[in-house]
């Protein structure tokens, strides 16, 4: 019986799940290190959006990552701005919720079957 080779999607999902877990642990433990800023930033900019973008059929890596970053930042802005607008400012709690939801989605990507890729013709023909 041969072991299945993990797909690129699964490798990325596992890496981002680790980043998500690390962010969650550092935040929950309120661990003070300068690295925490960079780890939290990397999580906020990459992980939630990738967890959503990976539900699209496999596309060009540039498209996947561009959408992942855009959606991550958009989610971060919406979470932060909602707290500011409503006047309920709990950044640590909000981050932990985001960590939990992202982790669940990333685990789902680790176990689900890959979506077949599709590649329509370019908009501008040669």
């Amino acid at each position, binding site marked *: 019986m041969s072991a299945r080779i993990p797909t690129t999607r699964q490798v990325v999902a596992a890496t981002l799940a680790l980043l998500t877990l690390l962010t969650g642990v550092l935040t929950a433990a309120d661990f003070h290190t300068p690295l925490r800023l960079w780890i939290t930033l990397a999580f906020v900019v990459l992980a939630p959006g990738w967890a*959503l973008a990976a539900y699209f059929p496999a596309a060009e890596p540039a498209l996947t990552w561009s959408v992942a970053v*855009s*959606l991550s930042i958009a989610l971060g*802005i919406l979470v932060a701005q909602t707290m500011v607008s409503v006047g309920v400012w709990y*950044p*640590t709690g909000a981050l932990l919720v985001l960590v939990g939801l992202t982790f669940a989605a990333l685990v789902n990507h680790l176990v689900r079957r890959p979506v077949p890729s599709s590649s329509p013709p*370019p908009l501008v*023909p040669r």
Partner: protein
Amino acid sequence: MTPDTTTTIPFLAVPEAINPSTPTAVSDRWKALNRSVTPALAALSVILWLVGLHPVTPGQMGSLGLINQLSPILLLSYPILLAAVVLELVADRPRERLLTAYATAGVLLVYGLQPASEETARLSVAWLHVGFAQYIAAHGQVLNGYDGRFSWPGFFSLVAFVSRASGQTDMTPLLQWAPAVLAGLAVLGMRALATAVLGSERRAWIATWLFLLTQWTEQDYFSPQAVTYVLMLGGLALTARYLVRPLPATSPRAGLRGRLVPLDSPLDRLLAQAAILLIALALAPSHQLTLFVLGGLLLVMLLTGWLWPAWLPWVVLILSLLWFCLGAKDFWKDHLDLVIGHVGQINFSVQQGLSQRFVGDGGRIVILTVRVALTCTVGLLAAAGWWSLHRRTTRSWTLALLAIAPFGLIILQSYGGEVILRSYLFALPFAAILASVAVDALLTSTWLDSRRTALAVPVVLLTALGLATVTARGGNDAYTSFSRADLAAVDYAYQHAADGQTVGALTADLPLGYKRIGAVRPLTVEATCPDFAAIDACVVAQASDFLVVTPSQENAGQILYGFPAGWTSQLIHQLVTSGKYRLVYDQNGGRVLAETLGAPHG
């Protein structure tokens, strides 16, 4: 389709020499050499760049800015990297991973130059943005009535969120490399958009490189516009990939009623629309222009028959209007004239954005001319690319309209004199896509007399664009960059200012406002002085409690106002001898004056 060389313009004809579909034309030896040469050239380029780097402070720079301080070794790295890119692009099978690595190197060489060679983050506005974010982090709300930018606080709220959630109160470490990271993300977005529009082929890489090499606007510093630009490109890429299906190339006009359903599954289309809606929701409270522009571009796609979901542009535009009316009420109730006062006054916008900017000494004029030349060159290349497409493959006007539409902002307002610059930034992605067709045609030209020339011309063109952008981006650095000594002087003033006191600067080129927002008020003499030549009287009239003077401001006075060398020292001497101020800090060029207690306020 085989091009008819008797009816197409010469440079559009595909030569046998480079066309990948004619393998006999390229020798095996050349191909084998190419495969190892391009990584070696790229590696050499990065090594030369790193070896050629050296620290530069504002005091060393003249009116041409950073370019005068760059070593020849470092400058040599640009043509070498671009030679590697062009050689890889014309290979039989261009290697995607290498091209991605080269693009990353390109981002480092173009956008990482200033962070790597300057001591601290440049541009005073970037520092001010940290101050806004830190205020929200500390208070959980915006400071109403303080600054119009608090009416679009999405980006500042995000930074405040990260700041508090990571337990870090000082976000200034994010500033220095922000331009390289944010510009890199924009390049990634451009690559995604170009791939969706042009397919995964050479032209998509050329479009990416044209974008990378001609984004001279410097709107990639730590700011809402830089982050929202990345989001906009992501949204446009999603749209182009999942929600657009143009009519066949032979159909000249599609129109609103001729739209076709994209080929992707209904679920994919639904996901794409939801994702774009999410991006639009985040853009609305984050930047005043970007969502309007995204809505406008989607509307162009709809009206020309490209975009399938007809509701999308309207919802995007309604969202931006809703936030403007409800969320940004604090801004427009006091500044409505700024928003609608110049609608339709194109002359005013052009004067503010172009002619009134052509002030300063010779070096400054050279820098401004380089920016205009770069913009015109991109425009000409885009026009040539559109003509090529129009003649050969598609008669659609959509891409041309998408590249032109952002300049419609000029009709609406001057945007504080920046409207042409912003229009260029928003037009650049589609202009680069069109221009890539022209540059690709250069690579495959038959009118150039040899294969070497056919390769050399694009390398020279791309190098000229890249070096012009490096020149333009660093052109103001004599007064927009700072040394650590400048920051130490500002820190000293903030440490000694009591709540309610003011810290002033002579020109706007000082990193003020990055701490104690709402407690200590930053002031700039330049902003309130009607006759800057009589600055000594303005300083006395403004009567800041602390006045910070740095080499950057000395340079600004010389370059922008024609003041003599040493004008800040003369001014300090006057202020001290008059008894109105005393010098309380003087280290490594950074000086702080404190108002003398009991001195009469002018």
